[in-house]
């Protein structure tokens, strides 16, 4: 296992909900990242975010790691949930909330 893979592995192991985005939750640098931040915030989910623009290694590494070509990417309890379209669709259908509940993630809607 190389360093990047190990790094990513540690992040998703040590944090229940991890969102890989471009930018930060306060200043997302891409509309798709912004949309996913908004959904998680809306649901009241505490998440750990990783700005892929900080590191080219992580930016490329996470795409290989998940076998997924785009950012954002959401992980819950080490499981890859999907990118922006899937998160949006799951949010709208209520599936995302169900999944978070099933996985025992704490939710505090505002």
């Amino acid at each position, binding site marked *: 296992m190389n360093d990047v893979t190990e790094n990513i592995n540690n992040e998703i192991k040590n944090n229940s909900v991890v969102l890989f985005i471009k930018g930060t939750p306060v200043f997302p640098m891409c509309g*798709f990242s912004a949309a996913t931040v908004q959904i998680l915030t809306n649901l009241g989910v505490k998440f750990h975010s990783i700005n892929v623009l900080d590191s080219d290694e992580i930016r490329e590494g996470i*795409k290989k790691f998940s*076998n*997924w*070509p*785009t950012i954002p990417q959401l992980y819950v309890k080490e499981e*890859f*949930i*999907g*990118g*922006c*379209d*899937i998160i949006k*669709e*799951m949010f709208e259908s209520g599936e995302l909330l169900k999944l978070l509940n099933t996985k025992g993630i704490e939710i505090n809607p505002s």
Partner: protein
Amino acid sequence: MAMEKEDLEKLIKQSIPDAKITIEDLRGDGDHYSATVISKKFKDKSMVEQHKMVYKSLKGKMGNELHALMLKTKSE
């Protein structure tokens, strides 16, 4: 970098021949598309798996030549 709508459709059709595809060029710049893909091949597959099948059909263009593709997949 951009891509023609027809090329996009062709690529998806190549690997998912029965796909019913609706593509919309969101900004008219050939770089931001929205696509709905419906296929029998998606049956019993998770959303992640369905999207991966479409991404795979684009042969690495997703995230490179193609910046944004809003994707919706459905099994027939």
